[in-house]
């Protein structure tokens, strides 16, 4: 177990190094350097610009720059934001993390909670009208651009019905001495629309995976055997069949874990949610390379971590994997 885990982790770390190299090369492939835009915006003397280049290390040869970049990244130093100079990128990322964690965590919970139940329901009622309509509805939602669905929901629930707030995470008019309960309720109200939007556009995958996997298991002999023994159908379904139809869903969960940190670039933008996705979108608008690079690295690390965790879950759930 330990040896397997070590090997799997080493593999992920190696891939992360490749990611670092790729991202560095990508950024360097771009014509000019990150400071050119800054120079275009304000008047700068040659000395000032040279000093800035020294400050950001851009006057160094490529190899040295790469070394600085990698050693910096390993120590948690991703450079300094150009837009929010002189705030370090890491500080920016950390400040945006809680909002993304809240939104991403809620979305994961809703997507997998509701998606699994609906997928199981579809498998049990396969081929019937409810199954067909659920498939159609989820495929239609899946085809929607998240930002557009967000706008439509914001228009309907926020503007027409005046039910829910459509921007930010807190009500700026909330009295500063409100109790924590009132504050939590306020955040919750702001959370509903972005979380609903993201859940709606992504739930189709979970439903489809769960439906297919369960259908495959329900065909197997041991399910028949369990029924033959006279076990109640509910017990056959959840205790016997469903537990064996969980693997693809667990893999999908690992694949989706990054949403915890990255949130969603588009939905956070639409609802002005102060998370990492919003930060990344703003950074693109401002050509703030260090910040884009920092978010990309953070999300990639999360992708690899999700892969390792999913494999670990397979390992824990399925004895066959252990022998392989």
């Amino acid at each position: 177990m330990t040896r397997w885990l070590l090997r799997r982790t080493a593999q992920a770390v190696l891939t992360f190094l490749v990611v670092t190299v790729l991202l560095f090369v990508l950024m360097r492939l771009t014509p000019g350097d990150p400071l050119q835009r800054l120079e275009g915006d304000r008047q700068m003397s040659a000395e000032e610009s040279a000093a800035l280049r020294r400050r950001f290390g851009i006057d160094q040869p490529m190899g040295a720059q790469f070394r600085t970049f990698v050693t910096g990244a390993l120590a948690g130093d991703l450079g300094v934001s150009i837009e929010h100079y002189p705030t370090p990128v890491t500080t920016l990322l950390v400040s945006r993390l809680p909002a993304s964690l809240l939104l991403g965590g809620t979305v994961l919970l809703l997507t997998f909670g509701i998606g699994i139940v609906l997928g199981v329901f579809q498998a049990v009622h396969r081929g019937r009208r409810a199954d067909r309509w659920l498939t159609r509805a989820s495929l239609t939602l899946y085809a929607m651009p998240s930002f557009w669905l967000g706008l439509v929901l914001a228009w309907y629930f926020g503007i027409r019905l005046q039910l829910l707030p459509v921007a930010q995470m807190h009500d700026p008019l909330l009295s500063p001495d409100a109790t924590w309960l009132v504050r939590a309720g306020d955040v919750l109200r702001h959370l509903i629309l972005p979380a609903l939007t993201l859940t709606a556009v992504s739930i189709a995958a979970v439903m489809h995976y769960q439906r297919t996997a369960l259908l495959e298991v329900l065909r197997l002999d041991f399910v028949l055997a369990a029924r033959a023994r006279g076990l109640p159908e509910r017990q056959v379904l959840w205790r016997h069949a469903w537990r064996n139809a969980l693997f693809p869903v667990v893999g999908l969960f690992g694949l989706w874990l990054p949403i915890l940190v990255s949130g969603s670039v588009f939905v956070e933008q639409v609802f002005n949610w102060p998370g990492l996705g919003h930060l990344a979108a703003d950074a693109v608008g401002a050509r703030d390379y260090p910040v884009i690079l920092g978010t990309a690295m953070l999300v990639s690390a999360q992708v690899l971590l999700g892969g390792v965790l999913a494999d670990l879950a397979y390992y824990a759930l399925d004895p066959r994997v252990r022998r392989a």
Partner: protein
Amino acid sequence: MTGSLWRLLSRALASPTGRIGAILIALLTLIVFVAPWLLPDPSAMPNLLAGATPPGPGHPFGTDQLNRDILARVVSGGQISLSVAGLAVALAMTLGALVGGVAGYHGGWLDSILMRAVDGALAIPRLFLLLLLVAVWEQMPLGALVLVLGATGWFATSRIVRGEVLRLREAEFVLAATALGAGPRRIILRHLLPNVAGPLLVAATLGVGDVILLEAGLSYLGIGVRPPTPSWGSMILDARPLLTTAPWTSIFPGLAIVITVLAVNLLGDALRGALDPRSA
């Protein structure tokens, strides 16, 4: 090769979802490339002072804040969105087939290097790769957008192709071709790749849906297709301030995206089912 592709297509079209998808795609393509001749000029502002007018006679989808006909703009934006998606996916499939084919056929160190790089690239979410690449351009030309969308879309495809090539490399017909003196280039292009045409078609169809959504998203962020060229995403961006007063300005371009992506995904799912009946 063409024989098996036709068989795959006809099997996909035998399912109702595949048929609906294919008919919708054909219809949308026809509308988008033919209708502009019948519709008003998408950049004409017949009555600028009237601003955004709701759907009604003369303007079935209404007009936007500059009194431009939204139906005409949705159609001409569709031309851009569909062309960009089609070209980008063609580029991505070519790259994926070549890299996967070379890696699988050559094997050894070249395979290791290429696949490690692909692993790394797959770990970076495509949207973030795009954000990095797109941020370079002050004004992104359409050609560059196609290039960038294509260059970020081939990683998973190359893995599929490599797997198939690895499986087929030792097949007898390949050994026969080698024995007859065919070089690696001929074997990859004429003997191996035609056999992955099916999986490539599935990946391409589903890839078109992804690219349409990504292009719309980038345009919505203001970094994809730029005005005055209309695209579905940039129309929704332009319509954002009008959300309260003229919701139709953002509803119709969004519906166009939903219908197109749904059609492509339906056909893609049917094709995947036809290729591997187990997955359906």
